Structure formats: structure tokens, C-alpha cells
């Protein structure tokens, strides 16, 4: 992808921040699964701006999305789970990310550690707190809940043992059509069992080999995408009865351009320094088609990708019933 020269549209400066910062995922007019990993924290230019400078991205939706997460967690406790052997890696994730945020946002955040005593300041939440690494009771709700109240990303921790990755802890409130509560405890191949095409294309086993070879401290990222109806972050299997029905009506809805969103996950893969666990962060960005269409190159690429996508992939992404309507609208502009 580094071979593709992306030129920022000269009019892009006039676009709102939500468009300029959007991680538009398509480099060409077609899309297939690939192990599209690249080193993290490298600024990625798009036709409308850029993204990806920081490991933890904080944007205009910060407080609103954290409030949304708190509501989901209050309703459904199965969205967070830490198997007992994962406690040290949760602390490892927390100390790694708070320290990274303090480095990236020095105007609003600071982090100090002396032995196991840590002090965290988050000016966006008027929060000053002291806690002790390893003492779960020193943070409200424990370290996993607390980390989930500081970053917009969903958090997944994979244990490394028996040459395999195991999904043994996480806090996932904004899942794209999967159930964290069901998948906890599964290994990497089991988690990806329902994905079509990946078996024969060996992508999953290759990805696992790659992740197993990462050394502590290394950070990579990739993107994934789907379509979501409404600005709805929680499209988990748990709430499917609430959002599933929209799939049958959106194609004929005159408000489709405002309602239908391109959902892009920026996924970070971080091998944690002390536990050696693999931290998998999933940050979800939503942008309606009406905003996509304001960037001519995006409108065209996305229109072609949706038109060309093979049926089995469209079926798995849950977009088969309305992708043609979306593509037609984008390409007719």
C-alpha cells in the first residue's frame, strides 16, 4: 500500500474533522481479506486528511462513546471478562496504555509510576487518581473496567501458550456482529472458525504465526470494515434482535445516505512488555455515506468495492441485502 500515492484533495481543508480524520480503508476498487498489517503510529494520509499518528486515538466523540460504553456494561455484564490467569496482563495493558497516552497528549494527561504506585491525571474527565499495580481494589471496577473508561477502543487480551493465542480476557462493548462473551477462552483458530474464505487462504494461521513472533514492545496495526445502520456502536450478537431488523428496510429508506455508515475498525496489536500477552485494541469509526460522498475519491472507491465484493463475503459482513443500493447511490453521484 505504500506504493499507492495518495494525494489529499485540495478542498479537504474545508471538510469537518470527522471526515479529515476518518481512516478510509480502501486503497483500490476491490477488497479481499489480507494480512494487511503495518507498523503502528505511522501517520497514514488519505484523500481527505490523515489518521493513525497515535496508538490511542482520542477524538470529538470521546466522552459520548465512554458514556455509551458504561451504559452497555451496566446492562450486560458478559461484555467484560478476565480469566484468573490474565490478571497480570490486564495490569500490563493498563500501565502500557496510560503511559502511552500521557506521552501523546501531554496537555491533558499525565502518568507517573514509582515502584507499583501510579498516579494518573486525565484532564478530559477531570480525573486524578492514585492506584497500585497488582491491587485490583485500588481502581473503581478493577483495572479492566477502569481501562475501558479511559479509552474508546474495545480491549482484547490474548494469552500466548502452547504455540497458540487464547482469547482469555477483554472488555468489548462495540463488537461488529460477534459475541465476546461466547468467544472468551477460545483459541485463535476457533475464534475465526465462522469466517468464510480465510481457511483456504491460510490467512488466519499466517496471522497467528506473525503474532506469536512479535517481541515485547512491538506494535502493529491493521484495518477492517463493514457497514452499520445508524450511528450504532454496539452491534454485538447480544443486541442483534435490536439492530438486525434495520437490515431489511434500509435499502428502500430515503434516508439511507445519512443512516448507512461505513464502519472502520482500526485494530492495534501490541505485545505487552511484562506479561508477554498480546493486546488487541479495536477502535471503531463510523461515517455516513453522505459524508463519504463529500470526498470524490472515497465515493468512487467505496462504490466499486461494494459492487464487486463476492457474495459470500457480503453475506458474512451482513450487508448483502443493501450493498447494491449503497453502491448505486455512491456511483450515481
Amino acid at each position, binding site marked *: 500500500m505504500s506504493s499507492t500515492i495518495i494525494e489529499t484533495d485540495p478542498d479537504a481543508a474545508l471538510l469537518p474533522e470527522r471526515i479529515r480524520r476518518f481512516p478510509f480503508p480502501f486503497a483500490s476498487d476491490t477488497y479481499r481479506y489480507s494480512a494487511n498489517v503495518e507498523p503502528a503510529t505511522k501517520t497514514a494520509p488519505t484523500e481527505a486528511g490523515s489518521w493513525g499518528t497515535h496508538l490511542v486515538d482520542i477524538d470529538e466523540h470521546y466522552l459520548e462513546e465512554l458514556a455509551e460504553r458504561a451504559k452497555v456494561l451496566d446492562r450486560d455484564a458478559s461484555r467484560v471478562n478476565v480469566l484468573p490467569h490474565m490478571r497480570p496482563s490486564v495490569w500490563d495493558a493498563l500501565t502500557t496504555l496510560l503511559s502511552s497516552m500521557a506521552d501523546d497528549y501531554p496537555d491533558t494527561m499525565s502518568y507517573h509510576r514509582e515502584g507499583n504506585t501510579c498516579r494518573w491525571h486525565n484532564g478530559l474527565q477531570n480525573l486524578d487518581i492514585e492506584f497500585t499495580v497488582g491491587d485490583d481494589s485500588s481502581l473503581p471496577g478493577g483495572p479492566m473496567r477502569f481501562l475501558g473508561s479511559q479509552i474508546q477502543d474495545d480491549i482484547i487480551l490474548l494469552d500466548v501458550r502452547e504455540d497458540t493465542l487464547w482469547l482469555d480476557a477483554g472488555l468489548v462493548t462495540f463488537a461488529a456482529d460477534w459475541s465476546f462473551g461466547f468467544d472468551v477462552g477460545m483459541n485463535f483458530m476457533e475464534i475465526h*472458525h465462522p469466517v468464510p474464505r480465510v481457511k483456504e487462504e491460510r490467512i488466519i494461521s499466517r496471522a497467528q504465526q506473525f503474532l506469536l513472533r512479535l517481541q515485547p514492545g512491538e506494535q502493529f496495526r491493521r484495518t477492517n470494515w463493514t457497514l452499520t445502520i445508524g450511528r450504532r456502536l454496539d452491534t454485538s*450478537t447480544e443486541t*442483534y*434482535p435490536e439492530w438486525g*431488523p434495520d437490515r431489511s428496510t434500509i435499502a428502500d429508506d430515503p434516508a439511507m445516505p445519512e443512516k448507512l455508515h461505513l464502519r472502520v475498525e482500526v485494530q492495534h496489536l501490541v505485545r505487552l512488555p511484562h506479561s508477554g500477552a498480546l493486546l488487541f485494541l479495536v477502535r471503531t469509526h463510523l461515517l455516513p455515506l453522505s459524508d463519504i460522498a463529500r470526498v470524490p475519491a472515497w465515493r468512487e472507491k467505496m462504490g466499486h468495492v461494494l459492487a464487486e465484493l463476492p457474495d459470500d463475503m457480503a453475506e458474512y459482513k451482513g450487508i448483502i441485502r443493501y450493498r447494491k443500493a449503497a453502491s448505486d447511490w455512491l456511483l450515481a453521484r
Partner: protein
Amino acid sequence: MRSASTPPAAGNGLEPGFRGVICVSFGSTGDTAVPDTDGQPRYDLHFEAATADTLLELKSVFGSSRVGVRLVLAGPPTDIRAAAAVAADCGLLGEEVTLLSQETGPRFVYCPHCLSTTVDVTAGTEVTCHGCSTILAVTDHFSRRRGAYLGYSAHAEEAA
């Protein structure tokens, strides 16, 4: 080497420090068809079903065993998966456990909408969740930890 006929210790009936093969069967299976224990001492257990009580007894058996032990589980899939989950919790590794699953038998289906698990005896493509009455489509996505298949609302996308 100790023989399987050594008088059992008090409690779970397994002598402390056992490192042979533990064969556990569930249901109506007469005896566990263990291929060959290669002359290793063998300890047999039979239960009607994997209830909370029998799983607790298994836990105590694993507690008196030592590294080197192997486990064979035979019977209906739901029972042996529940037992396998206890074995994993007690520190047995996948390669140390053999599952001899009966081809037929009920399966568990997990409902992510109400978080309950339904015993499905029909083995069809759909089952009614006994927790929330939603008709669930049964996927082949399987969790060894839960011993269950994932279900999801089968008709959510149909116009109301």
C-alpha cells in the same frame, strides 16, 4: 509401578499421587472403551451424568493426581465436555485428555441475547431458547469452555 487394584485411599477412592490413566464414562455406556493403556495403571469411574456433584468428585480425583496422568472421557458430548472443562481448570492440558464422544446425544446451545444455555435434543437447525423463548438459529461456532454452540435470533431480519 502401582497396579490399579491397589486398595483405594479414603475420599475419592484414588490413591494420592496417581499417574496412570483415569477413565471416566457417563450415561449408559457400559464400560469405557479405552484403546490400550499400555500397561499403565488405570482407574475407572462411571457416572450417570455430569452433574454439579459428579464434577466436584472429578475435581477431587484430579486434585490427588500428579503430572504424568492421562484422562479418557467417554459418553454423551454434553457430559464429557463439562468434564473436560473441569479437567482444564485443574491443569490438565489438551494433549493429555482423550474425548470419546458418542455420535448422537443432546447438545447445548448458548443464547447471547439472554445468556442462558438450552439443551437441544432435536439437533435441527433451530431451537427455542428456554430462557427468552427466542427461536435461535444454531451455528457450528463451538466453545469448548462452555461446551456449547452459539445460537442467534433466527428471524430478526424478517420484516415485522
